[in-house]
């Protein structure tokens, strides 16, 4: 039960490399925040600073209003689940889970009771005497979770905890983590590079890039109103398509000659070059081409069952676009395909800076 506040948190390593440039964020009690971004974006550094495993170069970190910058990890009342679980190989499951309590001086009987209670909660009660070596990947993952839960910390920190599991188990554990976190009502910060994992878990998402926060918001908010080209391309799968375009008197002209109406409120002047973003699911196949459609040729077809992904080449363009079509559609490589971008779902970005040109309230 805690709130976290990060105020201009920065990290500069002794070799001069700055991994984090002044991160501001407030995390509410009981919230599950997922920090997502490509590798090297600073998300792990941020998590490790919250944990107290990396020192804070400047800025302030407070848990429940108390400044914790200079506290040891154990004094911050946090628990962490590591990517490779970091279970103590020579201790039994019960000892692994109880080690923090033992260090806190909790009497043996109470320790035993708490460990057993937690083990029941996450279905480990039959494995308490095993060593980590004797467990499957999923079971180890559970032990790591149990080790965090048993201490009843103020904050859970997760460092890509599912990345070592196979795909099926990952989905299952994802649901379980969500369920447990809600049930226990503990504030949690979860770091991942997997945007699907991020979308499905998060109360709020934090997208990071190059040591900065690009955008914070609910998953759907980030999906609908990406603040930058980076966020737009990172959230959503397959990734958003981008087409260079020119704005003239309220109309966007694409290099292929297509004209699209510009929606009100976009902060762009007539004559500007813009970057048009349209998600694969917002390209609608139509029977006949006109000047509001894209005329394309199919280069590759990926049938997924319910949907079919068509990788298509826009006439006269080098890069491929992706369109998500109905799976019942019969298409083959080489087919001509007419695609109409949903005019309500167009995103505009500055071609150099990458920030969104849409007025915040216009796109829903």
């Amino acid at each position: 039960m805690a709130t976290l506040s990060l105020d201009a948190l920065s990290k500069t390593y002794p070799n001069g490399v700055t991994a984090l440039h002044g991160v501001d964020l407030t995390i509410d009690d009981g919230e599950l925040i997922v920090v997502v971004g490509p590798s090297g974006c600073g998300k792990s550094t941020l998590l490790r600073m919250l944990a107290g495993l990396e020192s804070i170069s400047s800025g302030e970190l407070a848990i429940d209003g108390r400044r914790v910058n200079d506290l040891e990890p154990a004094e911050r009342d946090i628990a962490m689940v590591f990517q490779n679980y970091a279970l103590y190989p020579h201790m039994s499951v019960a000892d692994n889970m109880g080690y923090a309590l033992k260090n806190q001086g909790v009497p043996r009987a109470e320790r035993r009771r708490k460990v057993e209670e937690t083990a029941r909660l996450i279905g480990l009660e039959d494995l308490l005497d095993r060593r980590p070596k004797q467990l499957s990947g999923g079971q180890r993952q559970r032990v790591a979770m149990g080790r965090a839960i048993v201490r009843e910390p103020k904050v859970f920190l997760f460092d890509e905890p599912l990345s070592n599991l196979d795909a099926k188990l990952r989905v299952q554990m994802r649901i379980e983590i969500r369920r447990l976190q809600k049930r226990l009502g503990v504030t949690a910060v979860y770091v991942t590079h997997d945007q699907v994992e991020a979308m499905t878990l998060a109360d709020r998402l934090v997208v990071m890039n190059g040591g900065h926060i690009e955008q914070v918001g609910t998953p759907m908010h980030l999906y609908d109103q990406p603040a930058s080209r980076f966020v737009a391309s990172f959230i959503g799968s397959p990734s958003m398509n981008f087409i260079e375009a020119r704005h003239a008197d309220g109309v966007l002209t694409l290099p292929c000659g297509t004209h699209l109406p510009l929606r009100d409120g976009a902060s762009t002047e007539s004559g500007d070059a813009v970057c048009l973003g349209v998600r694969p699911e917002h390209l609608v196949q139509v029977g006949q081409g006109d000047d509001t459609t894209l005329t394309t040729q199919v280069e590759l077809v990926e049938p997924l069952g319910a949907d079919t992904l068509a990788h298509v080449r826009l006439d006269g363009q080098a890069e491929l676009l992706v369109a998500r079509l109905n799976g019942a559609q019969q298409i083959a490589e080489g087919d001509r395909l007419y695609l109409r971008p949903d005019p309500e779902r167009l995103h505009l970005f500055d071609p150099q800076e990458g920030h969104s040109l849409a007025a915040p309230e216009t796109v829903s």
Partner: protein
Amino acid sequence: MRYRRPGLDAISHILLILALLAFSLPVWLAIIAATHDQSSLYTGTAPLWFGDQGLDNFRAILSEPVARLGTDVARLLFNSTVMALGIACGKIFIAILAAYAIVFFRFPLRRLCFWLIFITLMLPVEVRIMPTYKIAADLNLLNSYAGLILPLIASATATFLFRQFYMTVPPELLEAARVDGAGPWRFLRDILLPLSKTNIAALFVIMFLYGWNQYLWPLLITTESDYMTIVVSLKRMLSSADNLVPWQAVMATALLAMLPPVAVIVLMQRYFVKGLVDAEK
């Protein structure tokens, strides 16, 4: 699967067995010699089969002062044991701590400490023998167990091996322990030492052999027979200007000098090989 040639296999086995026999020959002859009395040894070439004096020879050297030594071999065995155990345990003890500091802490002058310790790998005691002897003499360490043990601990082989092992410990274990509220001493006791068990065993074997088999240093520092080690005693027994070498006693003593280290290496072979091969990495 390999392309097998049964003929080559047979030749391999034969050559290996011949090598085994050749390598065992010196010890076989020693065992035989230790079972004869002096007169039956000196009847020509040394005999190839057992005599009947084995028990008497061993009982004699173990319980009665041996000529030219002034003490019995039991005492020598005791001294060698004290020295070997002292060196093995002492080295392991200081190495565990020093390697822990160097790998798991960041502090000013850490690199300097690293080099100060590891430069000792370069110079065996034989090279700086005179001044080391003088210092031992100044510190009143001649003819003492401390004098036998301490100077031989001053090499960083064990520290180096522990450092190599510590660097393979996943960093997350330390982080998990810190999150779990373990400070440096708890981490050492609860996590690192239990994980080091095999390495400690391996080093114990290597350092026990190193200690037991020392020659030059014990030769210099022990002038009294009360502190003499068994390995050093052999030369004294051999140096017979006046009369015949009592080979039966020399060989019995040599066998006793071999027995503890050979037993350690055979019983703890698994650890020994691991320790040796790790040292290379």
